[in-house]
């Protein structure tokens, strides 16, 4: 059902999940992105977007859509949230590897029980074996990501992730369930199209998903970030666009960091404030040596 991918170096045809050309061994790019570049995914996404645009024109609100798209182009970032320990480790030069890759590289032991988790099934259903090479992020307009997953939001440099990032209209876990309910049989057929795309198509997915809200907002720029990403009381109430970044991330991919809790709050919440204070000091020393921009929110 999927078209073959043509090698840019030698024009040979390859399966879409190949990373290296079978003929000339040239690079074919990233399989998660290549998959979603197939017309099977692209055409329905385009036509849904066209419908949204036509609807906006009919309502005489095209400028609102264009305004939101411009904001996304200018400030839309991939953001990963984490806690202090994790960030300190990354700033010490550790790679943030997809779990399965870390196991393969012998960097961490296998957690067989956790492997049973639904996540592995979901990853495989969407990307087959390449699902094991994904790091997750959310799309954000103000550098603040999903704080239910850690109070520190790490914005990634777009030019380091754009070519290897795919975009889902929502949490893939829920999307998977929704697709199953709609009759999808993973392994026997491709998942339904229209809600998944590449980084280049993030605006289309956003507009298709959030059309009504964007129109209702009537161009109020200050509301843009909370329209795009809603932090719920719990994780299941979060509403966001999920980004799948192929392969690892590390300190060189970080653009800036936002601490959504101030130091006082962090210390007051800690079970061992003394320990936490040392970790904040270590973190600040690491940050100053890397030169990465960061800000504390009050």
């Amino acid at each position, binding site marked *: 059902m999927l078209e073959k991918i043509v090698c840019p170096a030698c024009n040979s045809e390859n399966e879409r999940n190949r990373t*290296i050309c079978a003929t000339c*061994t040239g690079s074919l790019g990233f399989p998660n992105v290549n998959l979603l570049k197939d017309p099977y995914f692209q055409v329905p996404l385009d036509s849904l977007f066209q419908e949204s645009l036509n609807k906006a024109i009919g309502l005489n609100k095209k400028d609102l859509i264009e305004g939101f798209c411009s904001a996304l182009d200018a400030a839309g970032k991939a953001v990963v949230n984490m806690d202090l*320990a994790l960030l300190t480790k990354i700033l010490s030069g*550790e790679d943030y590897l997809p*779990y399965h890759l870390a196991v393969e590289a012998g960097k961490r032991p296998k957690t067989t029980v956790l492997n049973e*988790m639904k996540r592995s099934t979901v990853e495989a259903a969407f990307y087959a074996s390449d699902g094991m090479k994904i790091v997750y992020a959310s799309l954000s307009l103000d550098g603040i990501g999903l704080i239910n997953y850690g109070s520190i939001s790490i914005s990634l440099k777009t030019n380091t992730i754009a070519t290897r990032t795919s975009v889902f209209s929502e949490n893939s876990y829920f999307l998977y369930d929704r697709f199953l309910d709609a009759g999808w049989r993973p392994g026997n057929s491709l998942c339904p199209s229209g809600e998944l795309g590449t980084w280049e198509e993030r605006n289309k997915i956003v507009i298709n998903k959030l059309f009504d809200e964007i129109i209702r907002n009537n161009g109020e720029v200050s509301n843009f970030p909370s329209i795009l990403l809603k932090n719920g009381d719990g994780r299941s109430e979060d509403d966001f666009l999920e980004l799948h970044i192929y392969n690892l991330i590390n300190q060189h991919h970080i653009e800036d960091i936002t601490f959504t809790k101030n130091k006082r709050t962090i210390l007051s919440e800690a079970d061992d404030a003394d320990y936490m204070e040392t970790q904040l000091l270590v973190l600040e020393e690491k940050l100053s040596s890397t030169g990465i921009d960061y800000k504390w929110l009050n």
Partner: protein
Amino acid sequence: MAKLDNILISPLLGKAYFREAGHWYVLENQNEAKPRAVHQMDLNDLQYPGSGFIEVGTPKNLEDLQQVLSDETKKGRSLNLFLQLMDVTIQSEKVLEKITKVLDRYLQDDQVYSFLEGKAYSVVPGPTLDPVKALQCSKYGVSERFLKFFQEFNTSQNFIQPFILAWDRSAVKHAPDTETINTVFQNLLEKGNIKSMILSLAQRDGKSWDDAMVSSILILKEHKYAWRNLFFRELKIEISKLADTDFIYYEVQSDSDELSGIAGSFDPIEKMILDYIDSQVTAQKDKKSKKRTKWYRPWKGVRWKVWDIGRPADEVLDSLDYFYDQINDLPINANWKSYEVIIIQLLAYQFENSSPDQICMSLSKISKVCLDREEIIHAKKIIGYAKLLNVDDPVVDKQFAEILKSAGDLLGSKKEYERIRAEYPQDVIAHTGYAEVLKSMGDLNGAKKEYERIRTEYPDNLITQNGYAGVLKSLGDLIGAKEEYERIRTEYPEDVFAQTGYAEVLKSLGDLNGAKKEYERIRVQFPGNITCQNGYAEVLKSMGDLNGAREEYERIRADFPNNIIAQNGYGELLKSMGDLDAAQEIYEATITANPYNEIAKNALATIYLLKGDIKKAESFVPENDNPISENDYYWRFVKISALIYSGETETARVIASDCFNSCPFYNLKKGFKRYRNYIRILEKEYSTLVSEAMEEDDSPVDHLMQVHGNAAIDRIDVARKHLEVCKQFKQVKNVYESSCLLSERYDLNGLPRNNQNLSQEELDKKILAAELEAVISAGL
């Protein structure tokens, strides 16, 4: 909430994951934290490189889990602080003081203390961690316990790596499986035995070592591990090789007189190495003020006893490329002094920066560089230095076996590999080296079997896969070899051996255009690879484009002036083009630089044959009634040629037929068939010659034989077809001349006639002479 099951704790993240009623939850170690459902993005936690999950075996209720999580989190934090205190990138006094105080507080907890001790003595500190820096932090005012912990760790840290290495080596020999030995290690670690052993090594405290060993054996006795005694005996031996352990050294030998007696005759490098050993021993003696360290048998190898771990291997070895390049840049016939200067510089550098195993490694590498340049004498001499430093280094031993092989001592090489394989059964290179020796000895089926066995044991080993494909090719199973190479190059597109192997198989299969295309592609993919470049030139030659091949070889020789294969290839090309003097010059230069180079010697003998100096040619041929290796068979070609020139055709026929029947090497077999065909022409057995023609006989000389055979029995059309092929090789002097003569003799047309004044008998004589030259020049 009922009992919680399947609990996993990440001490460093301070999180516990567990399952209840089929659902996963996470509990965080925070004030008043409550469990919450695990979510897909929690998987990112698992991506944390140092998350190190602990499985909690027994089900627990929530309250107990909170306590376990709190305890484990403390341990994780202590480890984090321990690493941060040694982290060389953290320099702020304020931060270090704070870390010191908090860690000191954590260490007062006995559980945390033993946990951290276990961790500290089971992990080799990386290059960014400095235990001395941590010890210096005691200036901020610390407890006795803190001070003792870091003092002991600081003393021991250089011995952790050798201990773990010795442990692993001993485990390979005696422990039943990895899981058991890991459990044993963990068990002894938790009981403090591992620390006691390492610390006793560091403090040269024989009594503590013995106590720790006895205690460990007793612990294992409870588990009824029957292998424990052998294991610890082995551990003791391994440690004696890897660390300064004269207190447990029980193979004491004192040969200081022998050493002083021969010291005067040592060359500068030998002397340097022995001085180095001596200085290390003296330094150690001064440090310990203990009994004199004993060592023995200098030239047969010193059992290395003072083991100072140098800089990280990668860092040191990377910096050595400079020296390897210098060796590579030396002209092939450079005198030994040039090598000596470079090796002395290298050793001077390494004595300051490396451990003996690293020095052995770099000497082995230099020896390999020499071997690749076919400088066998130098390679052997250099590996002698490495053996002087450590008689038991498998890297050195393997290189020594390779030298024996290259020097033609195949049995010696085989024995050496057998010994290494027995001593290091997990060393895959020793196994593949052994298989290659079998191949060189002509035991191709044995080599194939061996490779099949290694492939089963190490399915991902690339050397094995290429080696296997190579054996198939040598056996003449070209389709099998092609399939193998195709599979390997698809799976490992960056492997140059598989790529060139594939191109060579295409060439052997007669698909010269395919091989040329392949080489053109590979040359782009691996621009610095000399094998690709030589392979490409050879394909051009096989296609009859001798001028193209010449241009190519001239370019290669300019770029890689020391590459022997290119030199020999160029010589062979000149020989084919009829420029015997120039070819002779090339081969003589090669032999001067590399007296072991059998290919050059063989080619030179062939040139003498072509020049009519049969005696001189025969003088090169070694006495050998029982050919085994490829080289042995090569010399048979010269022998047969000399017999034909001397008129002993019948003896030549017997040898050619015997070799054709017994030679296991596919390519050489084809050569013997060529000689047999020539003898059939000499004896006018044309019908037999024609009936034995095979599709695989595809060299220009094979076609030439068929032109003659078919024309002589009036199969003119067939003869003309073969002549058409020969005409493509106009630049191969002997082939073209013979083709013209045959065309003239049998009126095949299309080629110049220059011998109209000769009688038929004279013309026949001329044809046979030209054909013999073509057969001799054909090469393989």
